[in-house]
């Protein structure tokens, strides 16, 4: 690889200090050593259940959350103030991500307004252009957010993110606050913008079918770690890690009524004190000896990386039941 990737996240850790009552406090380990990279024009999907650190990861990439360890690099250099506009974010709820007191043109051009040096006339013209590019009408820019539907508001939020010509958008559950009928429109808008502007996306979602439709690669997160990462269809059609299988089993499908799925025991472990060994051990249907050792994210078959010794090291440990593909022993040390 001659050129560094557009975005690379290296051993990222995020811990919050939470105070409980009057005495002391404890650390929340929201993100625990996440590494991945995104190429130009690529979409990576981050999936996982509620509380697994997806959103914190997104905010850490943006710089909205302080990083405890590790690095977020943009084209090989640490993200600083000058290049922070290269990464923009689309929030889940367009209702709350738009200031109700500002007209749409002012909302859309907020990043430019912050930068300063533009006349209002220029900003309004730019806002109209951007509004058109996300499927709004130019005269909409004179209105206020409450006059729009959820889908239109999300379009406004997208136009705002595009105002500074970013290279990468973090999409934090971009459709989950929207009606089903509108979700597809927003997804299609995002896809066509990506094609026009060569955008890269980090798509944070718990909607597996959305990720399947949009993402080139997918990373599955569990308790602040990536447990499996690889090309979308490989991972989603033939999951290797036991957690990925559990997660995908929970997705309703026509050919498999929900009632037939055995409920999984246990809650997400507390992220105040991290479990030892494999984080998923206590809920894992295939937990055996060796799971008490910390697990590393290592290459399995092909382009896939898995954090499970049962998959990556077949010798002596056996393979979890119904593992879709044989893993290659030689990859265990890769």
């Amino acid at each position, binding site marked *: 690889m001659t050129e560094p990737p557009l975005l690379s996240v290296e051993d990222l850790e995020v811990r919050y200090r939470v105070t409980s009552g009057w005495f002391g406090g404890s650390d929340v380990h929201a993100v625990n050593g996440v590494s991945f990279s995104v190429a130009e024009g690529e979409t990576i999907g981050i999936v996982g259940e509620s509380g697994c650190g997806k959103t914190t990861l997104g*905010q850490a990439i*943006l*710089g*909205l959350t302080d990083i405890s360890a590790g690095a977020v690099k943009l084209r090989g250099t640490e993200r600083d*103030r000058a290049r*922070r*506009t290269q990464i*923009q*974010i689309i*929030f889940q*709820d367009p209702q*709350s*991500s*738009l*200031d*109700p*007191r*500002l007209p749409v043109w002012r909302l859309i051009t*907020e*990043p430019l307004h*912050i*930068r300063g040096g533009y006349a209002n006339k220029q900003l309004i013209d730019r806002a109209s252009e951007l509004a058109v590019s996300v499927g709004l*009408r*130019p*005269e909409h820019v*004179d*209105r*206020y957010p*409450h*006059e729009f539907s959820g889908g239109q508001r999300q379009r406004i*939020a997208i136009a*705002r993110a595009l105002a*500074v010509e970013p290279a990468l958008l973090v999409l934090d559950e971009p459709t989950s606050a929207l009606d089903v009928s509108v979700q597809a429109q927003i997804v299609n808008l995002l896809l066509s913008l990506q094609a026009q502007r060569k955008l890269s996306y980090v798509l944070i979602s718990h909607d597996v079918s959305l990720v399947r439709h949009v993402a080139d690669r997918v990373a599955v997160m569990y308790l602040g770690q990536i447990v499996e990462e690889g090309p979308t269809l490989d991972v989603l059609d033939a999951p290797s890690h036991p957690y990925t299988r559990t997660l995908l089993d929970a997705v309703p499908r026509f050919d498999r009524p929900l009632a037939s799925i055995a409920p999984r025991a246990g809650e997400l472990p507390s992220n105040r004190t991290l479990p030892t060994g494999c984080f998923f051990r206590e809920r894992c249907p295939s937990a055996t000896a060796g799971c008490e050792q910390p697990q590393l994210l290592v290459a399995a078959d092909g382009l896939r990386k898995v954090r499970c010794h049962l998959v990556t090291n077949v010798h002596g440990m056996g393979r979890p039941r119904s593992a879709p593909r044989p893993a290659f022993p030689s990859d265990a040390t890769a």
Partner: protein
Amino acid sequence: MAVDGIGAPRQAVSRFREGRLWYRVKGSPLTLVGAAIALVVLFVIIAAPLLAPYPPDKISLSARLAAPSLQHVFGTDEVGRDLFSRVLFGARASCGIAFAIVILSTVIGSIIGCLSGVVGGIVDTAIMRLMDVFLALPALILAMALSAALGPSLFNAMLAVAVVRVPAYVRLARGQTLSLRNRTYVKASRSFGASPAYLLRWHILPNALSPIIVQATLDLGGTILTAAALSFIGLGAQPPTSEWGSMVSSGRNYFLDQWWYITFPGLAILISAMGFNLLGDGLRDMLDPRLGGR
């Protein structure tokens, strides 16, 4: 939506938006009444010397306690001063002081509240506990105690009532700051590189301001009452200042035979307090853009 067609001139759209405020005011007759009363009171404060037929302190012992007539529209008091003139000039003392109190307590309260919300920690806790102490005492009793301790005068009464009103604004401003700081649009703005000053100027202040303005307008009515009450018991305006509360107080002695002495200053208090309350109520409904869409 043919009117909003793509070719529609931008001018038409903005004219529509400017018309909206008036449209909403028209929809609420009580707000209009409140606004009209407030305007009349403001006009009287400014133009009292022009409107009053007599100087407010002009004693005319030959016309003591005269009933309302064409010479003295509201009648006269026990030393023959024209009550109409005194009521008009009383607006300056009674409502002027109410404005001063509200502005003073709003500004002080908002500053303390925003600081408290932004700084947080032990400073925040200390400020809020102190405010709780103020709130625990009945407002009028506290104002009486303060102005009695400072010595009876209009200025001290103003200070006392302002101090008593501060905690409400501190709580309001602090709550607004805390909730706004964590709004997604503030986060979004931060992600675009906005400085704290920018956030305060464009997102936090504009959104925190309207509840504070509404509270201030609503408080005007109550403040007029409190200031009048202090004067009524002799802790506020001192004679011969014409002030509605002290006029009611001295008129009380003549209530049975000279009804006009107490009635007109009392009506002035009632009408102006009600007017500002109605205006505040209407403003609350109007300043919230989410309610405006209905």
